[in-house]
């Protein structure tokens, strides 16, 4: 279809969710969807600044980054990746349930998604706690004595450079976790509204758009996991 003004006109009587400045529900839905996609682009650029810093410093201080990365727990990282991927599936199923008008399924999948999100955050909290205990939190208490193992050869690394890795680690995962918290809050509200019957096969745009947001947060983690956890693990 053309992206312009649609010709068919819905009335406020037949569609209570139709806002005054749209001609019909389809125009309103397409508008909201495009707005969400553009917002996701701003999110990509927002994280892009962090990715840029990461990329440059990783190239500059590869040994320190590898040594520091090896201090992260790959099991937790992989587990959290799996949790997020499963939650993406449940979001897809939630949107589908909304399309079908299956209210119970919709609420169920939304609740599962929130629980998976909270699981992710819980694991993140465990990891952060471990960083505190190992003095891997950047700041005055930071300490790093590990070396970079280059095929059996132990190369000492500058702790300042390892600290830089952890600064970026906390900045990137912290910013990601903030987005997860927002996503969990969003889905909780949507679950309540869905329970109250706000959504129908003719109107489920908020579910769909929140889903798009959740998938993007998932995609960011898909990149964060190998970049942060998997540097030079083979040595």
């Amino acid at each position: 279809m053309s992206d312009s003004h649609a010709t068919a006109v819905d009335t406020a009587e037949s569609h209570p969710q139709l806002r005054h400045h749209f001609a019909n529900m389809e125009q309103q839905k397409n508008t909201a969807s495009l707005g969400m996609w553009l917002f996701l682009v701003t999110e990509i650029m927002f994280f892009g600044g962090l990715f840029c810093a990461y990329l440059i410093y990783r190239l500059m201080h590869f040994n320190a980054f590898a040594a520091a990365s090896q201090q992260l727990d790959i099991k937790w990282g992989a587990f959290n990746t799996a949790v997020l991927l499963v939650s993406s599936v449940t979001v897809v199923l939630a949107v589908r349930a909304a399309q079908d008008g299956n209210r119970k399924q919709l609420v169920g999948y939304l609740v599962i998604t929130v629980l998976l999100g909270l699981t992710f955050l819980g694991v993140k909290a465990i990891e952060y706690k471990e960083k505190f205990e190992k003095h891997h939190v950047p700041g005055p208490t930071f300490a790093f004595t590990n070396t970079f193992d280059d095929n059996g050869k132990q190369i000492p690394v500058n702790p300042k450079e390892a600290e830089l890795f952890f600064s970026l680690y906390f900045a990137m995962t912290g910013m990601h976790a903030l987005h997860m918290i927002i996503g969990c809050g969003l889905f909780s509200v949507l679950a309540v509204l869905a329970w109250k019957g706000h959504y129908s096969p003719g109107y489920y745009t908020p579910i769909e758009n929140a889903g798009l947001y959740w998938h993007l947060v998932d995609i960011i983690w898909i990149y964060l996991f190998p970049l942060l956890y998997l540097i030079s693990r083979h040595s």
Partner: protein
Amino acid sequence: MATTVIPAQPISRPTNYLTNGFTLKSWLLTTDHKRIAILYLISVTLFFFLGGFFAMLIRLELLTPQGDLMHADSYNKVFTAHGMIMVFFFLIPVVPAILGNFLVPLMIGAKDLAFPRINLLSWYLYIVAGGIMIHVLLNGGVDTGWTLYSPFSTQFSNTNVIEAGIAIFIVGFSSIFTGLNFIVTVHRMRAPGLTWSRLPLFIWAQYATSLIMILGTPVIAITTVMLAVERLFHLGIFDPKLGGDPLLFQHLFWFYSHPAVYIMILPSMGVISELITCFSHKRVFGYKIVALSSIAIAVIGFLVWAHHMFVTGISLYAALIFSFITFFVGVPSAIKVFNWTATLYRGSISFATPMLYAFGFIGLFTIGGLTGLFLASLGVDVHVTDTYFVVSHFHYVMVGGVVMGYLGGMHFWWPKISGRMYPEGWAKLSALFVFVGFNLTFFPQFVLGYVGMPRRYWQYPPEFQVLNVLSTAGASVLAVGYLLPMVYFAWSLRYGPIAGPNPWNAAGLEWKTASPPPTFNFDETPVVTWEAYNYDEIEPKLEDGGIR
């Protein structure tokens, strides 16, 4: 539009957006894009005069070679305040948030922007950020320059850098929401028949601007976050002692802040396209290429940022690439200038005030743009980096370009906004003041910079005084030129002649509805069956006193 049946209004007088509610609440909680534009008009104007106040302090200090008005520290804070306010609170929002907000839905035949509540939110974000910025100023200001360069901003400055960063972060999101709204609106809300090739060039310019707002602003947002976090927790992201690289800050900063220059100038270019074609009473020359040149400027603008960093020690090879690409931005900009000029050819030109501003824009922007090419050349740039040559160059683009376009647009659409005509004689006089004052202020700065006066110093060798006095004198004339429109616009609200829907006999949907427009813009959704700027089908207006 198959009308949704609206019961006949009991009021006999036709209401417009201004008379639709008089309470403070009806303004502060409005979702009407036209009212939000007025809210922006008031707040942006306040910040313009605040930034102008700091500009006057700078010029007064530089009247004499000695630092006699203020200390070096205060001077740092004053030019920082001038830069931050003018860039983030005036130049970036001025045309999109005021004229764009008002005109985008009108020009495309929509009832409102796609997301009216987000539009209001973006104004509130602007106000919150502005409040924080004023709080920063009252608490002693910031002394880093508007560029906030690390390591000074992260390690050495004792001023409110973090708070200023928060203000920039928030006002950035205001700008992102405006851009997002415009893009979605242009895609989704156009009237039937209004194809992309029939869109006004102002819309194309707003669209290109919005692309930059969406793609660039998030990067400055995350950069200010990194800056604040580094300052707060003494991390080493930009600190070479801790493994970081201060140049990375500049890379990320200019990735946004160079395209931001096009956020400022593109909307004004859109205004000028409208003015030139209307007051030549002729379809714009090369519509398609002018439209696409806006997009080209937006895209190429993202590829040139490190030309701000030629002397910082970036790699010579990178500098060559950035220098080379910078020349390419000149191409679409020149296309616009040539097409505007070609539009004039055999046009039936009238010299109404908006057209005077358009002429001013073309001349001054050309000077600003060409000196930009000097600066894009590595060798010349090394010679004039951080001198008044650079200051003058970007003021020719920002003030000679953006502000000229803005004032031209305000005069052109004032009858639509207010329903009244401004006094033409006073307006012409003030346009003259602006043009003369501007050149007197900034042309001497080209010379000053070329002979070696560095920017951001509060005192200078006595041999530079004559040119500095000229510049300060020019700034005073310019100030009069800026204050006059305030007075006569306000005057015209009550005493100006009624404008009628289309005082200029202009093409474009915004002129086909009442002035001021009704709340939902059009009584019936218009159906567009004509090409843009079909001036050959519109009778020229002859009694406006213009020279033919």
